[in-house]
């Protein structure tokens, strides 16, 4: 445990023994004990939105601009001021510049995995991938530790989950929407919503028929875990399918236009709106993907015309929306790609591109106990690496879990019975919460 490195003040002997999993255990955790001592603001989020930017967004053209760097590094974008004095971001993120007080920028985040899949696995779990075993996604951990009510899935991925439940097992897998919603359109999801030709009345009738016919094992049922489990899942599925709660949570068309408009018309923005509705109705974690960041060629026009406007409207809409609904305090938000991109612009196309670059990247955190309006960490003059000590994906993961009141040193058993620490090497970034 590299705990001492950043938390030097804490005396090991004063820490309480790490307890078992779950809430009871958490209150005993040394981290929360520290929080109790006033060293940290206590994590208070109980739900989360994880926004993934697969492909690897260029840090230099978004949240870590270097206007004084040589032109082959600087690129064509200019920084603009945000609503927080001293913080500047890309000119193509004007909406986000207006809400910079709501999120925290992490700069000089650094790791070593330059392949998409490995990088994704790393930032999606907070532990460096190892061949023997796959770590679980943040959502899977929440689904296990804090399951939602029966009518509502614990974990939803819009449209797909980049990371599975790993060793925790398929039962903690995300419900994948497989599609993205469009503004003002009714929206439903695979398996959750009834198809048009079948009414709730019909499903209820069918369920009653099923109940009458499914009695072959009535005798055995009470003493058999499998049969009991199947029964339980069956009735949960029925309540989820027939309850208006799940369906309504997914149906973004129920939002007034005045509210949904601020998320922009793009599928990504509307997915952010969906995420908001879902966490509001009790889903523990919603992951949203915005792809297209793998800009080996035409880096600048692609960012300017496509990715940045989508991110700008969607994410600013989400932060504003969460605040308007009073959800920002209880919803931990984490935005990340799998790596940054090379400072030096390549010659692959007329305007050049940037290649994979894990040594320096940015991440964003908001919500819960995160103190917005600050920049933590710093990259060097060419954004080629952290200026001082690097922030690692492990640290950010530990902080994300902390923000959610989950002890990052919690131990789980792998499928082979091997005890695994949730976040192997992460240190909580105290500044996020102070």
């Amino acid at each position, binding site marked *: *445990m590299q705990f001492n490195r950043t938390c030097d003040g804490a005396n*090991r*002997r004063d*820490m309480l*023994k*790490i307890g078992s999993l779950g809430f009871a255990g958490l209150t005993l955790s040394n981290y929360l004990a520290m929080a109790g001592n006033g060293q940290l603001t206590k994590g208070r989020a109980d739900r989360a939105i994880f926004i993934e930017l697969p492909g690897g967004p260029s840090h230099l053209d978004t949240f870590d601009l270097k206007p004084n760097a040589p032109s082959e590094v600087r690129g064509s974008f200019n920084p603009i001021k945000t609503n927080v004095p001293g913080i500047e971001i890309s000119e193509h993120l004007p909406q986000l510049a207006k809400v910079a007080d709501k999120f925290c920028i992490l700069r000089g985040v650094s790791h070593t995995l330059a392949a998409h899949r490995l990088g994704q696995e790393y930032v999606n779990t907070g532990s460096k991938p190892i*061949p*023997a*075993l*796959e770590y679980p996604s943040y959502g899977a951990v929440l689904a296990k530790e804090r399951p939602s009510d029966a009518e509502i*899935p614990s974990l939803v991925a819009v449209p*797909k989950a980049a990371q599975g439940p790993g*060793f925790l*097992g*398929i*039962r903690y*897998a995300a*419900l994948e929407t497989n599609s993205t919603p469009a503004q003002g359109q009714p929206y439903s999801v*695979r*398996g*959750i919503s*009834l*198809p048009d*030709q*079948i009414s709730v009345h*019909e*499903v209820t*009738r*069918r369920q009653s*028929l*099923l109940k*009458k*016919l*499914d009695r*072959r*094992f009535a*005798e*055995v049922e009470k*003493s*058999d875990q*499998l*049969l009991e*489990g*199947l*029964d339980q*899942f*069956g009735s*949960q*599925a*029925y309540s*989820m*399918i027939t309850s208006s709660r799940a369906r309504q949570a997914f149906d973004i068309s129920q939002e007034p236009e005045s509210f949904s408009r601020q998320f922009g018309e793009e599928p990504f923005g509307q997915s952010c709106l969906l995420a908001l509705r879902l966490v509001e109705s009790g889903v523990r974690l919603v992951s949203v993907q915005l792809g297209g960041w793998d800009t080996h060629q035409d880096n600048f026009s692609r960012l300017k015309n496509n990715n940045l406007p989508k991110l700008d409207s969607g994410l600013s809409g989400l932060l504003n929306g969460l605040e308007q609904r009073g959800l920002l305090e209880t919803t931990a938000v984490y935005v990340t790609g799998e790596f940054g991109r090379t400072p030096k612009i390549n010659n692959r196309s007329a305007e050049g591109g940037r290649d994979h670059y894990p040594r320096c990247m940015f991440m964003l955190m908001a919500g819960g106990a995160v103190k917005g309006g600050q920049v933590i960490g710093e990259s060097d003059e060419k954004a080629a690496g952290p200026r001082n000590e690097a922030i690692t994906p492990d640290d950010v993961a530990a902080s994300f879990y902390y923000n959610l009141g989950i002890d990052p040193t919690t131990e789980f*058993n792998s*499928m*082979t*019975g*091997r*005890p695994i620490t949730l976040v192997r090497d992460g240190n909580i970034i105290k500044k996020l919460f102070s």
Partner: protein
Amino acid sequence: MYRTINRLTFILMFISGFWTSLWNTEANEPAVHPGKEKTADIIPPINTRFAELPESESPDFQKHIIPLLGKLGCNGRACHGSFQGRGGFQLSLFGYDFHADHAAMLDDSTGRIDLQDPDESLVLAKPLDGDFHEGGKRFEKDSWQHHVLRTWIQQGASNDSKKPKQLEQLEVQPHEIEFTDSTREVNLRVIAHWEDGSVEDVTILCRFKSNDDSIATVTDNGIVNDGTAGDTHVVVSYDNAVIPIPIIKPFGSKQKFKSTTSNHPIDQLVDQKLRKLNIEASGTCSDAEFIRRVSLDISGVLPSPKAVEEFLSNSDPRKREQLIDKLLQSDGYAAWWATRFSDWTGNSDEQLNNVLPVRNVATKMWFEWLRVRLENNVPYDKIVGGIVNAQSRNTDESYLEYCKEMTESCKPGQASRFAEREGMPLYWARRNFQTPEDRAIGFSYTFLGVRIECAQCHKHPFDRWSKDDFEQFSKLFTPIRVNQNLVAQDAKKERDTLLAAITGDEKLRGADLRRALYTAAKNGETIPFGELLVNVRQISDKQKSAIELAKKQGRKAYTPALPSGKILGQNSNISLDHDPRNELMEWLRDPSNPYFAKAIVNRVWSNYFGIGLVDPTDDMNLANPPSNGPLMDYLAAEFIKNQFDLKWLHRKITTSNTYQRSVEPNETNRLDQKNFARHVPRRLPAEVIYDAVMLATGSDAKASLMREEVSEMAIADGKPKRRNQQDFALEVFGQSIRESNCDCDRSDSPSLLQSVYLRNDSEMHQRIMDSSGWVTQACKEIGIDGPLQMSDAQYQTAFNRANAIRKQVVNQMLRFQGASDQQQLKMRKTITSELSRASIKVESLGFQMPPINRLLAGRQKWEILEPLPSKTANQEDLKNLVEQAYLRTLSRYPDTDEVEISVDYIEQSETPADGVASLLWALVNTKEFIITH
């Protein structure tokens, strides 16, 4: 997977010394010889010797101090056994490294031992004071533990031997516990026999752990108390020994049950155990249950309604054996078991990415290679031999011939050509099977059913394996190299020629090269393939040049030692100047190998019973003995005697009464899960459910096509899968991901998503309502409308077309009636045939046309277009239909209640088709459908 965890997690123990004896003895002979006390005087327990501070005795570091620290929990993972230590003090995990532990304790900077002032030693002060010690208070002042530690420190805190002392035998008395009404508590006594001849009662220093606390609890002092009925083991560990003690707690008071009348060896061995437990087995399952169960288990295919009806009406007393034989010959058998073998051997598309120049064909080849061998019932050891000893080229095949053959095999639908090849080198080419360590872990998992990964970092906690064993074993795999660009020395030129023919002068790399090769192969050109090489050069090039340089400079050359490795558990070195795989394979198939046959027997058994004799099936270790040792030994020995004949094994298991038991429990076996006294229901595997749904919902024609041509089915790996593109349903139902060297990569646990899928996924609705589905077929057969209802737009179109015909007809009639009688007579024939054509058309659009003669006579004007009245089904038809629905889903006839409920439901539905669709929906959603019974 939930059941794999609990038992093993906290047992902290390991073994090595007595293993040698186990290795060499007959499998069913106990490894240790309990009760056979040696004549030497037994040293009394240390807690009595140190109750008062003794004057003369010095505690021994290995025999007493480390076991005591282990017993106190000091070297556990959560405490000082953690790799980072705790409070600046680290002990070796599970306490096997005496040298390091001694050094750590005496390290001045930790303050653990203070030789000048023993009482100031933290090793005493901390465990005496709960406030001062994060781990809390561990013992009392002036307790024997305190005395032992203090005396040892006072006498210099020494570790007197450089090499660990050999524990020759750990004797546990009694060696088996059978609780009775009068015997509900048993004291274990553990005696250590050391190589120096000393014999000591070490009970108080042992760690005890019950594998199932509900059946037997054990105290720190080795007192075993009974719990609920059942059987388990108490595991005793001390020094490097791990001894499982079988515990039996019979169900109810002893009464005499009828012993099995079967002379089937499986039944007799199972019965022996059941008698001890006082469990009565359930009766035999019905024929309907049998055909469903055995079809799904052997071949993965739901039996057809016709097959069920024929089987039920067959009166041949040997019909069950006949069915088993038939199933073992079926295409489903080879396909389904090739899927299972693919699981165990790790046939993963993700891991095979780029191992061949042509993409997405490697998994299919692998599967097909296995499938053909299973179809031909090639002996298991020969199949494994083809994998373990795999070479890329066949015997006497030139590189060019090899490339030609492989290029052909990569073409669509040509995987069977690959199946004709001698070896299956793809096993060695997987991305997650490249480092020697990954190979050691994967090889042990696949062929031995043993998890040695723990030993990669520390002594295996439940078995004999040390870090050194692991390293020596890993080394054996270092010479094997597989890489797409790697070919034998003699083939380099030819490879370059082949490449040049494709790429011309261009130097292509990476994706560009792949594309060029792919296109060339598609155009019928022969493309170069990589080969598996065994790198047995004794000295590397680098070392060679270093030697040469040294020679030139007149220095003495450094000659590196020849690398070598060791087979797991074997003492002799295998020099790596030759391919070590042959020796590895010979070791596997040797009848004395303690794992090879058992691993496959256990996995096959688990397929039929949902639980292995050793469970989890890939975790054979000393602390996890088989639930029925004699049965495991019998099956493994006979399997070897039968030349590793897999079909013999399947037949032996499925012909037993044990396999054919009913699911109905009785009072004595209701709670038992692992002694095979009744059929324990289990959820069908992902692929089997997937196919069963398709077969149950598809029309007869569609279903029989599937059954005839299994290659498209999920059980035949017919649904390609990639890490991010796995078929949704298969993923939800837990198809194996084949990635992590664990049988738990396949999941058979139920989940909410599975229930949601079966109830409401659009795929399910689609299959039920499909025009090639059974509901449509059945409705058609009894003459009612199918489930496909027209949309409003479709209705409007049909209405418009019928209405246009109506207008034409009305106009025609006006003309006809306006004509003279003579003209009418002339026109009559043509107009009648036109009208009947119109009538057919109108009806096909779903509307009514008045009778032709009424129209012609002008008695009806046809001013309004009316839809056809919907037909109603008759009761008899509906009853037959319900019967068919049951046969195709649950493989049985419905009882009278079920027929009545179903027919009522259909009749009360909005349309009969709705009712039939709902019935099929309900049947595939019953528990009965997705479990075995």
